[in-house]
């Protein structure tokens, strides 16, 4: 019997090609979008989820600012871990990781750069539930100068040879030898704290690199600290106790803990290990995924209920020959199951085909491996439940037809059914309009951020960075470095060159955060955080930063002086109104006096998500980065390549044994809101798809209403109605529904987008025209979709529609 039903079902779908196509297409688009978005969302949620991760917390610092504690930075003190463990028995273990910055490894003649690495306590493996591919996990990090490589890095350095027991050098650390004690496989390991290799924490005590931290006090706060707590610990209570606990030697700060699972999506503190994801965006995308799925099912219900009217006669005949309600329902359910099944298969195929392009769009490497597919199983279950629910309604409508009336081929108008379909369409339009508003706002915000003046000219500036691997003495190195800068200055298309410790858009790690400063008026501030970094005298020229008072450091023969330049925010902070009065005055911090040479206009150092911070810029010889400002006018078209070649050549002439790379400042700065851009792109794509689906639904509904009103249209035409009048009669309702949907969608979208914008320090206004535009666009889409069919109905010769007597 099922076989027969299935045969009838497939025959029916084949016969009604347009209907089947629209239906399957809508479902496929909806389900494929859903799977794609959820793959992304799942990926973002998979960070730092491991066996026992719910018991692991990161310790970070709150600063006391203006009498209140504010989240400070992601690092804790070197002493935090040990002190907390001693104080609180609930803490089973702690693991500290100290970032090493970008590290260059040397092996024989090989140079391996661009490595992210950390010093790590031996407890790391246990706290993070890691395993080693090779090596003894119990001892891998217990001895000084032990190093654990990622499998990928090990392969790069040693090829297929066994790395265990082999030795490596770290550039800048002379002839110190590090012994490989293990390898770990990072493939598929999603964490906010990525490491290409780990060095045993014990190395810290003798490694010259950490000399300045050897006093081991409450002064060194560059240590990521993770604690693993007891299964039965009361976390809220422990968190409070940790906040209340003030170790001796710590002032104006307190410890705070956060679940490691939340870090990737919800933490955006200074000195994060990497720019984390944006939980808001991920939540938005998940909502969009469900909306898309819902839309396509509403659509399906819509289309099949409309279509069911045409099948009244079939139902009538079946009923007259004895079909019972359940049998009829089964038939329609099977039909619908077949349709949904085809759609799900097609959706899977589309996902498989589209995944690479989608990966490009969201700049991810999402895979459809077994684990991912397994994680999609619950959603597939939702889909099947949804599909059968979607199938139920039309089956219900169809089986309710009265056979004698149905036999006359008369479409039965049940006002309940019409209301149901109308509500679906209004819902679809609420979603469409809300998504449109969301897309507009997201794009508007990104446009706003991109075009908001940073307060510095990043476009013609390139940052060169390299590490000299055969450094003998500092003075010799400095001479060579000066020579490099001078060589660059000789090139006609290079306008200016400067050394700089960091620059706008660069990682937070290269910025010092401080508390405690004495102002020219003798007042001392101990409560506020301010930042500083060091640059060469030409920095302000290179960056195009504007002075509101004074000027760049007074050039002396030396490359360093006690001159500083501060920003307006810092002046504001000093509670001084006359900016000029600061120039030439002395401020005091780090136990030394500094002369304020000038005050620059505020600029955004760390992107537009964060507000301007008080800043002190010191005059110091600097070889961390060389910033090169190109003179675009002196360059022939497209000569940036040549400039890069020239600079590379000169660098290697002067430093034959070195690493070297370059960065375009504007690109790096823009990458700070990469996540938002990805989000906007994804948002846009899925909005278009959602609109497509909604239009299909409307298309179905129009054919339904037009069919229902054929007779009415005919009568009106015979009585003198023109095509335009009929069109407006048919379209009026749709305009009303879009209007209703608009009224519902606006507050929802306003609330949601206001929330989305709240994480930005600078927000584009939620202008009225964004809402109006979305409404008008939705209306236009609706009218276009509807008119295609209603025009056809309006143009039909009334003789045709009135004949059937």
């Amino acid at each position, binding site marked *: 019997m099922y076989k027969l039903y299935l045969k009838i079902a497939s025959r029916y779908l084949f016969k009604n090609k347009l209907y089947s196509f629209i239906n399957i297409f809508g479902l496929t688009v909806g389900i494929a979008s859903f799977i794609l978005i959820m793959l992304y969302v799942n990926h973002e949620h998979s960070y730092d989820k491991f066996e026992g991760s719910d018991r692991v917390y990161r310790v970070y610092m709150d600063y006391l600012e203006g009498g209140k504690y504010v989240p400070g930075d992601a690092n804790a003190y070197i002493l935090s871990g040990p002190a907390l463990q001693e104080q609180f028995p609930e803490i089973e273990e702690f693991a500290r990781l100290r970032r090493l910055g970008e590290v260059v490894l040397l092996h024989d003649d090989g140079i391996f750069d661009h490595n992210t690495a950390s010093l790590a306590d031996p407890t790391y493996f246990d706290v993070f539930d890691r395993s080693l591919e090779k090596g003894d996990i119990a001892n891998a990090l217990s001895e000084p100068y032990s190093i654990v490589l990622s499998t990928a890095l090990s392969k790069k350095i040693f090829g297929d040879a066994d790395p265990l027991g082999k030795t490596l050098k770290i550039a800048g650390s002379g002839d110190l030898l590090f012994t490989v004690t293990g390898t770990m496989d990072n493939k598929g390991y999603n964490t906010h704290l990525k490491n290409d290799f780990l060095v045993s924490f014990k190395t810290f005590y003798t490694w010259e690199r950490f000399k300045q931290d050897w006093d081991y006090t409450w002064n060194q706060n560059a240590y990521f600290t993770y604690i693993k707590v007891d299964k039965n610990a009361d976390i809220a209570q422990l968190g409070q106790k940790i906040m209340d606990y003030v170790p001796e030697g710590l002032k104006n700060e307190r410890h705070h803990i956060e679940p490691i699972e939340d870090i990737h999506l919800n933490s955006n503190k200074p000195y994060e290990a990497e720019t984390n994801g944006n939980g808001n965006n991920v939540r938005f995308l998940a909502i969009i995924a469900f909306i898309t799925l819902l839309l396509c099912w509403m659509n399906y219900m819509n289309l099949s209920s409309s279509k069911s009217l045409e099948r009244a006669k079939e139902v009538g005949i079946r009923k007259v020959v004895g079909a019972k309600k359940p049998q009829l329902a089964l038939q329609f359910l099977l039909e619908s199951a077949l349709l949904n099944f085809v759609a799900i298969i097609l959706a899977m195929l589309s996902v498989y085909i589209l995944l690479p392009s989608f990966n490009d769009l969201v700049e991810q490497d999402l895979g459809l491996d077994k684990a991912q597919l397994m994680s999609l199983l619950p959603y597939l279950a939702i889909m099947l439940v949804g599909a059968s629910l979607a199938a139920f309604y039309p089956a219900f409508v169809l089986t309710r037809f009265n056979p004698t009336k149905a036999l006359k081929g008369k479409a039965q108008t049940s006002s309940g059914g019409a209301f149901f379909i109308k509500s679906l369409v209004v819902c679809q339009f609420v979603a469409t309009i809300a998504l449109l508003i969301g897309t507009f706002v997201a794009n508007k915000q990104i446009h706003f951020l991109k075009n908001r003046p940073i307060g510095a000219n990043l476009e013609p500036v390139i940052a060169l960075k390299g590490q000299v691997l055969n450094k003998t003495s500092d003075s010799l190195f400095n001479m060579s470095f000066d020579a490099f800068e001078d060589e660059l200055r000789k090139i006609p298309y290079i306008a200016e060159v400067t050394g700089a410790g960091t620059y706008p858009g660069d990682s937070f790690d290269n910025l010092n955060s401080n508390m405690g400063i004495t102002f020219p008026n003798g007042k001392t501030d101990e409560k506020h955080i301010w930042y500083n970094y060091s640059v060469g005298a030409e920095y302000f020229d290179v960056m195009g930063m504007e002075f509101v008072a004074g000027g760049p450091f007074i050039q002396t023969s030396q490359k360093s002086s006690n001159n500083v330049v501060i920003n307006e925010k810092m002046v504001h902070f000093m509670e001084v109104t006359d900016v000029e009065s600061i120039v030439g005055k002395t401020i005091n911090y780090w136990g030394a006096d500094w002369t304020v040479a000038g005050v620059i206009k505020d600029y955004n150092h760390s992107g537009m998500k964060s507000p301007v911070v008080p800043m002190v810029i010191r005059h110091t010889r600097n070889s961390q980065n060389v910033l090169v400002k190109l003179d675009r006018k002196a360059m022939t078209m497209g000569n940036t390549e040549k400039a890069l070649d020239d600079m590379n050549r000169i660098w290697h002439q002067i430093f034959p044994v070195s690493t070297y790379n370059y960065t375009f400042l504007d690109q790096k700065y823009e990458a700070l809101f990469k996540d938002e851009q990805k989000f906007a792109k994804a948002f846009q794509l899925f909005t278009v798809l959602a609109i497509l689906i909604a239009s299909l639904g409307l298309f179905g509904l129009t054919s339904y209403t037009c069919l229902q009103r054929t*007779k009415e249209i005919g*009568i009106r035409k*015979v*009585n*003198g109605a*023109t095509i335009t009048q009929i069109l407006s009669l048919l379209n009026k309702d749709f305009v009303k529904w879009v209007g209703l949907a608009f009224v519902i969608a606006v507050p929802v979208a306003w609330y949601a987008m206001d929330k989305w914008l709240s994480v930005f320090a600078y927000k584009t206004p939620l202008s009225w025209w964004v809402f109006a535009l979305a409404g008008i666009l939705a209306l236009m889409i609706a009218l276009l979709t509807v008119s295609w069919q209603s025009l056809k109905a309006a143009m039909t010769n*009334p003789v045709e529609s009135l*004949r059937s007597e």
Partner: protein
Amino acid sequence: MLLQLNNIFKWVNSGGQRIFLLKDINLEVEEGEFISIMGPSGSGKSTLLNVIGMLDTFDEGEYNFLEESVHDLKEKHRANLYKEYIGFVFQSYHLLDELTVQENLEMPLIYKKFKGSERKAMVADMLDRFSIVGKKDLFPAQLSGGQQQLVGIARALISNPKLILADEPTGNLNSKQGEEIMELFKQLNDEGVTIIQVTHSEKNAEYGSRIINLLDGRMI
């Protein structure tokens, strides 16, 4: 003369074959005539009526209506012509179910761009004339077939057409109701309205001044 059909042919192509629906129709109708069209089912009566009513086109021949050459007119022009001069009455009344009697009567006036106050007056006049004032707020489903057809005729008459085209107006009515409708037609005709009706009943046909017989699309 009200209208004149000269050598009208209408056909449809089906399976490469030309099927004639109307063959060489020649007909002159003077103002004030009352014509009955008769013929077996499928002989083309409705088709002819629709052609006269300009709801349908024809393929060959000439059609003049009040000095206008219908065969040369654009569709919009034709629509304006029938809107102004012709009223239609149908076998199944074709009232709009969701409108009241009063609103059904008003509907054509809206499309003919009468002002609100004029419409009110004309509808009231018509309700009076057909003695259905008491039913003005009822919906078609609440009326008997005869009453519904009465409304249908009232609607056809409301903007003072010169010509009433009625396709089996009594087909769905019992004989008594049918008789009443025919009496009404007679009365209207006496008042000067030209009427062309399709009917199967010899008796009803007798109300007319002239009978046209159709067979397979041809006048006999």
